[in-house]
């Protein structure tokens, strides 16, 4: 067992994947000599060479587009998008090509490209550096999406995404890159496309992922002090979603709160709410509630704390749920 930050865990996961499979290569802006703006790929160029860690020209469509061709050639490219808000120049390549080539080719081609996107807010930055665009990609069939919240998942999901024969986007919780946690390098976490109950409880369920998992856990702890028993699910995979684990929890607790940094409107919370309502209607003691950001472009840093859900907003939703 090792104590690693999430950033170092991803670095170790990528390194191990590169060591085990010579076809794994990394591509992105400033990921080589600099080690990435968040230093996630630090040292990997020295270790594996400039032909496997590509400081690419500055063009996201080019990065993802050439990664697709490399994957068709038998490589397993891992692309880093520097910040969430800069994914969009590659949006065409991701949604019309990467997601569809396997189906277009009647299964003859696979394009195992991994795209790493540091995402989420509350980092006190400028426009386009704090977004949570996961729903845009979850809506696109052909893609898979992972969102690790801790070092152990970060380490293993990086490798599992690369091994997966489908394209995988990993949304990395950038404000938690320095959060430390245990990493068991011998014991892989199981199915990456499954959710995990990270705190057991009896009276309500909070579903969260990525940077909001620690917030959900803090909310459950605060609720315990008020005499409430709250279960927390780390969703881990955003596409597909492990509805079985969520539904089983709601059947037990009768209440569900979904928290995400992305805007509530059109967010994944709506999808989860609808599915759970269909499957566990008679178990529900209250409507499913969502806690998300507001329907506006991500606001400037000075006021972002009012935009992104925090502990108090999750607790307020819990109160509303218990009030039914």
């Amino acid at each position: 067992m090792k104590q690693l930050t999430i950033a170092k865990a991803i670095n170790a996961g990528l390194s191990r994947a590169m060591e085990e499979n010579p076809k794994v290569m990394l591509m992105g802006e400033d990921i080589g000599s600099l080690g990435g703006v968040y230093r996630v790929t630090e040292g990997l160029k020295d270790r594996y060479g400039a032909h496997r860690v590509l400081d690419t020209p500055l063009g996201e469509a080019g990065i993802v587009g050439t990664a697709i061709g490399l994957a068709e050639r038998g490589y397993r490219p891992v692309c880093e998008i520097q910040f969430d808000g800069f994914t969009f120049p590659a949006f065409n390549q991701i949604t019309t090509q990467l997601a569809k080539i396997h189906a277009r080719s009647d299964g003859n081609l696979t394009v195992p490209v991994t795209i790493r996107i540091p995402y989420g807010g509350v980092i006190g930055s400028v426009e386009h550096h704090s977004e949570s665009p996961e729903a845009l990609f979850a809506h696109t069939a052909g893609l898979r999406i992972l969102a690790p919240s801790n070092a152990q998942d970060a380490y293993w999901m990086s490798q599992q995404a690369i091994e997966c024969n489908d394209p995988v986007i990993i949304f990395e919780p950038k404000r938690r890159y320095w959060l430390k946690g245990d990493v068991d390098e011998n014991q892989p976490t199981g199915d990456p496309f499954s959710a995990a109950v990270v705190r057991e409880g009896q009276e309500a369920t909070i579903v969260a992922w990525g940077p909001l998992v620690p917030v959900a856990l803090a909310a459950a702890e605060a609720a315990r002090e008020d005499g409430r028993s709250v279960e927390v699910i780390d969703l881990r995979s955003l596409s597909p979603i492990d509805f079985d684990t969520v539904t089983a929890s709601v059947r037990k607790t009768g209440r569900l709160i979904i928290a995400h940094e992305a805007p509530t409107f059109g967010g994944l919370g709506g999808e989860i709410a609808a599915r759970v309502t269909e499957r566990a209607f008679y178990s529900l003691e209250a409507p499913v509630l969502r806690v998300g950001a507001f329907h506006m472009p991500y606001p400037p840093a000075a006021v972002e704390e009012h935009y992104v859900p925090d502990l108090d907003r999750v607790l307020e939703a819990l109160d509303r749920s218990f009030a039914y």
Partner: protein
Amino acid sequence: MAAKMHPGTVESAVPRLQLLDEQGTVHEDPTFSPFVEDVDTVELKGLYRSMALARRVDEEATSLQRQGQLVLWVPLRGQEAAQVGSAWATEPTDRIYPSYREHAVVFHRGVKPGELLQLFRGHTAGGWDPNEHHVNLYTMVLASQVPHAVGYAMGTALDRKAAEDAGEQVSETPEAVVAYYGDGASTEGEIHESMVFAASYDAPVLFFVQNNQWAISVPFSTQSRVPLATRAAGYGFEGLRVDGNDILAVLAATRYALDKIRRGEGPVMIEAETYRMGAHTTADDPTKYRQRDEEEQWGTLDPLERLEMFLRETHHVGDEFFDSVTNEGREMADELRADVLAMVPPTFDEFFDKAYADPHSLIDAERAECLDYQAGFAPQDDQDDSGSEGAHA
């Protein structure tokens, strides 16, 4: 025929290569003629045959579409020399990334017309296994396939380097990749990024643009003030401009470019100036946007007629050969028609299996839901189907 010039243009020129002119006369070029020196009567007949058969398939597909047997067809008429000449220069292991009009290219590389027409019958978005003929699938989002070609080319170079480093035997002919796209697609941003990436990584890729003067209803002058071939210099690699209706020029230029690419000198771009003689697709009406006299002028530059004249007058090829090609074309068209009418449409539930390569919980759940729903109608369906053999034809 020279394209109209955009007002205010700062000229940027690349000479236009022509080896076989409109009158059927051959011109010598010190750089390019050596690349077609070995092209004898037999090979010229082969080139003609490929062009003529592609045109015959094109005609058959248009009529199949008119009869409601295809959902759409994209005619290639007029572009046979650009397509056959470039494909002819490739090795079977060179990966081709077509756009959506390169029928003569994909046929030359082994894709059967009946495989291609599955796409236009609405049975698949693909039609063949790209790894079998080293021909990728048609890509409908303009220019999107071009960065893929560059990435694939980067991969071939990496593989070759790895094999050399490991002391393994490598082929004497390094692989090359050809990306096809059109004058309209050339404006898409992905073309720019592709060229930058290809240049930076010395990718063994040929950018082959067929400038057929039109992007649906928009003339070339709206896409560019200057020949597209001039753009290559801005990326630091060679751009060639050829008479795309001159099969010898296209073949020579493509051989020259692929040689250079195989030597590891990085990408090359070829602009083949040609003309889309027909409609954009069977859903298009060119009378709305272009003049009959333009069509007539280009009509006199038909690439098949030029090669036929050359074969008859200089190589003394007679009717017997041309008749045999016509007959072969007819047989091919009949066979294609029969193939199309006999195609069995896919079942809807197959598409659940194709969405992902690895098992997927949502796909499994939705497939089960869908099959369950369909099962509710099963007895009625069975009745409807009985005795309606060939109902899909």
